[in-house]
């Protein structure tokens, strides 16, 4: 019997090629999207699964309150280590101090490479569950050792045995390779930890770090913990939250609250607003999950609609089958197995589509998702997914078709009742509501990105490169290098700064000024710059003057930005002083000599932070900012710069970033969402149109006789086209009325996250509405015009 059903189903598919293509193709497309989104969600949710004790690992975070605003972050002071180890040690299985992940030059013989890594305490390999390929697990015990990742070992040593080899780090000190560990997979934090050096080494080579041992005010380090097996995160947090406050009186004003930020939240729930955890990427996991379900729903709706639309054709079959002894249950079973067959077919097609597009998707979404061929859970879920889709898509036609009375359909008197088309119409409305809402959403996301992109950055980021110069080799070489680079003709202006132009690395407080309100807790973005900073960036001075090498006093001068002027409440900032608030041993006051335009260093969606650019008198440059010679091509300039660089620093790899590209990266997350939602919207519309196309062709076919009679009576092609299109257009207009308020509500909510945001304009909604109607008319017209132009004699003769 089943074989017979399959046979009929198969022949039906073959016979109605257009219908089958629309049905299977549309469903496959919907399923492929749902599958890809499913894989993406799985990837997001399994972030950090590499770490076997994921549930027990946490990073210690700190919230502090300045002027009523609470900042939360991972930076903690060194004395906290001792306080936790001594006072609360039995709550932790492992506790490690670590630096920030940073680039270091690793050199072996003639090979010199730049890799990112950390300085960490001894328990790191345990906590990170490192898979040691060679060497010893406790490879951080000796101060002069280094653990490196497999790929780092391969690049440095090739096929040579890495263990015991000596690597020179940043031209500063030599370390012996004690272990090689398997690379931490892409989908994990610490994926960019390509080497680990003992924390002790960090302390011994950095005096300020050594000195910070009792300094509660220096929040510059990270601490990772694995809590004891019988402990739980909340309880430990409760115990440690006030440790800093109780041991460090100076900090009470800022109310420092310590807490454990669990590893399972690192990736998806990492936003903090005013000290409260406020979600994060999990929002997008939900968003895309919903999109996936909707797109699958659209495809299922097509299937349902096309099946019921064909009901009058299949109705005869139902009648015959019933008249030769079929029961209703058997018919339901038959239609469900047909639906299952189609869904199965679509599924395999969808898998093929996924395989074809997974690489492209990975590039777009910055993922390394591989198709889980060997994962039984995946296949089990797939089977469930197929069954559910088959039921979803097939149940309505199955129940509807099988309910036909044989006498009615066989006598040919069967006419679908007045309301038989109603569910179909409702489904079309649902489809277009989703599509129109998607269109509006995508347009608004794109607009917001463009709006932020077009925001003036305050300086000229074109033709500007930044070269990291963090190694000690560069110390004191700025003047020399500046004259060398400018002399080479490749660079027209050059400055140094302690932070890149596209980020804020330091925030300072501890200053007073004339008119500072009592109790005001100041906080400035701070960068030390060479005198040419403004001129190399083409950063406009809007009051006062730039630094000058002519004035020796400028070594105690600063530039501030426009926002800082407002922030400090200064009417005439130029000539005012920033004084050290430490009264016992004050540093020299800093004179404000000029005001520069606001320059976007952080998020392009946020207001610019109050910033101070101080004259760099202690060689604290981390970046060279070079304005390339505009008369030559960038390629030529870079070749020259690299040659000059290599002459002076032969053992350091030449690295650089174009500032405009670096700035562009700030949009990466939003652009990814924009691109993906654009693609999904296009697919949603395509699927909806496929369905509409199929539906029109059936309606046209059903009404062939009516059209024939009308034409014989003198109807024009236009009036027939109008008659067929009007019905569908009505549905789409209803959809628009439903979609517009929903989209407005959702997108308005999304935009609230961005302080710098585009204003929603009515024409976006109008555009989406008109677009949807246009697409409908075009889709419907294909069939409508064909039906309208058909020769009536032919259609009438078939009766």
């Amino acid at each position, binding site marked *: 019997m089943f074989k017979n059903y399959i046979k*009929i189903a198969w022949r039906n598919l073959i016979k109605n090629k257009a219908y089958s293509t629309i049905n299977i193709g549309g469903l496959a497309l919907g399923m492929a999207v749902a599958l890809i989104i499913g894989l993406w969600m799985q990837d997001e949710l399994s972030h950090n699964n590499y770490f076997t004790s994921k549930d027990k690992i946490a990073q210690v975070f700190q919230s502090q309150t300045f002027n009523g605003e609470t900042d939360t972050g991972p930076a903690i002071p060194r004395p906290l280590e001792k306080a936790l180890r001594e006072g609360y040690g039995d709550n932790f299985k492992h506790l490690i101090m670590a630096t920030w992940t940073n680039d270091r030059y690793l050199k072996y013989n003639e090979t010199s490479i730049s890799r990112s890594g950390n300085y960490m305490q001894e328990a790191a390999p345990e906590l990170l569950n490192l898979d040691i390929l060679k060497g010893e697990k406790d490879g951080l015990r000796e101060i002069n050792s280094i653990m490196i990742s497999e790929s780092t070992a391969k690049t440095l040593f090739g096929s040579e045995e890495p263990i015991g080899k000596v690597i020179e780090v940043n031209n500063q000190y030599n370390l012996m390779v004690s272990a090689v560990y398997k690379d931490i997979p892409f989908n994990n934090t610490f994926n960019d930890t390509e080497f680990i050096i003992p924390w002790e080494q960090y302390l011994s080579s950095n005096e300020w770090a050594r000195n910070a041992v009792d300094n509660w005010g220096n929040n510059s380090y990270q601490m990772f913990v694995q809590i004891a097996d019988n402990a739980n995160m909340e309880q430990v947090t409760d115990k440690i939250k006030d440790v800093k406050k109780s041991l460090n009186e100076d900090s009470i004003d800022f109310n420092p609250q310590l807490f454990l930020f669990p590893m399972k939240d690192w990736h998806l729930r990492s936003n903090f607003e005013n000290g409260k955890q406020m979600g994060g990427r999990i929002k997008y996991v939900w968003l895309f999950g919903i999109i996936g379900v909707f797109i699958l729903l659209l495809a299922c709706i097509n299937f349902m609609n096309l099946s019921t639309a064909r009901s009058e054709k299949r109705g005869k079959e139902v009648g015959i089958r019933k008249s030769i*002894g079929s029961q209703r249950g058997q018919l339901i079973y038959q239609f469900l197995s047909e639906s299952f067959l189609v869904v199965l077919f679509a599924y395999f097609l969808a898998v093929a589509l996924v395989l074809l597009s997974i690489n492209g998707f990975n590039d777009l979404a910055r993922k390394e998702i591989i198709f889980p061929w060997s994962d039984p859970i995946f296949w089990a879920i797939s089977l469930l997914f197929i069954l559910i889709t088959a039921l979803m898509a097939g149940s309505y036609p199955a129940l509807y078709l099988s309910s036909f009375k044989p006498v009615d359909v066989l006598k040919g008197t069967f006419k679908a009742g007045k309301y038989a088309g109603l569910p179909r119409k409702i489904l079309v409305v649902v489809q277009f509501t989703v599509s129109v809402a998607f269109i509006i959403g995508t347009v608004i996301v794109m607009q917001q990105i463009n709006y932020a992109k077009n925001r003036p950055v305050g300086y000229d980021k074109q033709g500007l490169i930044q070269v990291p110069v963090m190694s000690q080799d560069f110390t004191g070489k700025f003047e020399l290098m500046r004259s060398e680079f400018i002399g080479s003709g490749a660079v027209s202006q050059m400055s140094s700064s302690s932070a890149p132009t596209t980020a804020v690395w330091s925030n300072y407080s501890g200053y007073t000024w004339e008119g500072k309100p009592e109790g005001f807790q100041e906080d400035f973005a701070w960068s030390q710059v060479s005198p040419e900073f403004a001129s190399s960036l083409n950063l406009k001075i809007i009051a006062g003057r730039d630094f000058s090498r002519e004035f020796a006093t400028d070594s105690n001068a600063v530039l501030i930005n426009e926002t800082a002027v407002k922030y400090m409440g200064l009417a005439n900032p130029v000539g005012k002083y920033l004084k050290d608030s430490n009264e016992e041993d004050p540093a020299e006051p800093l004179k404000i000599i000029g005001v520069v335009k606001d320059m976007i260093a952080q998020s392009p969606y946020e207001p610019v932070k109050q910033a101070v650019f101080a004259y760099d008198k202690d060689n604290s440059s981390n970046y060279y900012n070079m304005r390339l010679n505009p008369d030559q091509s960038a390629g030529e300039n870079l070749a020259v710069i690299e040659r000059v660089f290599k002459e002076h620093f032969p053992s350091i790899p030449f690295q650089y970033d174009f500032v405009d590209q670096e700035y562009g990266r700030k949009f990466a997350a939003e652009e990814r969402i924009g691109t993906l939602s654009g693609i999904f919207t296009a697919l949603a519309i395509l699927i909806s149109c496929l369905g509409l196309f199929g539906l029109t062709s059936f309606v046209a076919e059903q009404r062939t006789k009516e059209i024939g009679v009308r034409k014989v009576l003198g109807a024009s092609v236009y009036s027939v086209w109008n008659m067929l299109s009007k019905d569908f257009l009505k549905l789409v207009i209803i959809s628009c009325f439903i979609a517009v308020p929903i989209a407005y509500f959702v997108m308005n909510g999304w935009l609230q996250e961005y302080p710098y945001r585009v204003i929603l304009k009515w024409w976006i909604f109008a555009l989406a509405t008109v677009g949807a109607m246009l697409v409908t008319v075009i889709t419907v017209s294909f069939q409508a015009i064909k039906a309208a132009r058909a020769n009536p004699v032919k259609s009438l003769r078939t009766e």
Partner: protein
Amino acid sequence: MLVQLNNIFKWVQSGGQRIFLLKDINLEVEEGEFISIMGPSGSGKSTLLNVIGMLDAFDEGEYNFLDESVHSLKEKDRSRLYKQYIGFVFQSYHLLDDLTVQENLEMPLLYKKMKSPERKAKVADILDRFNIVAKKDLFPAQLSGGQQQLVGVARALIANPKLILADEPTGNLNSTQSKEIMELFKQLNQEGVTIVQVTHSETNAAYGSRTINLLDGRRII
């Protein structure tokens, strides 16, 4: 007694009025009979046939089929009875377009849950008997009207029913084809199959052993 209808009424409600499709029909069909139902269009011939065939319900009266009272049977039992004893032949053949001749013939047997070897044997048997072995792999659309109806009759017959109900079986056929089919019915009847046919044609009605005349849902003598 194969079929016994006592005071059968069937009506539809239209604007507060009952319009009778069948009015007080009494009919007995003995095994081995060949009955023709005649009457003008709309007189209720097909309705009566469908009621006998259990495809259609009635509103009042009693219907006994082989001493089982159909009116009080459940849907499932009715279906069982029907599958076992009744075969239908339609004016417009009503073969399944997507199945070949052979597969169309197999269909009723599938619904009777007959095992495959037995099914194959029966199909081969009837193909042979109706002389359509050569056509077994063709689809209905590839056959002439007469041939399609031949398959229609063969399908009605394949499950060895006691009663064949034919609703204007020759209505779509030309006179030669028409004659062939009627000859076939006659032969089947001689072999013991009970037949009730609806027809417009006096010639066809003459093949039967007796004729029932209907007018406006009523039997007229």
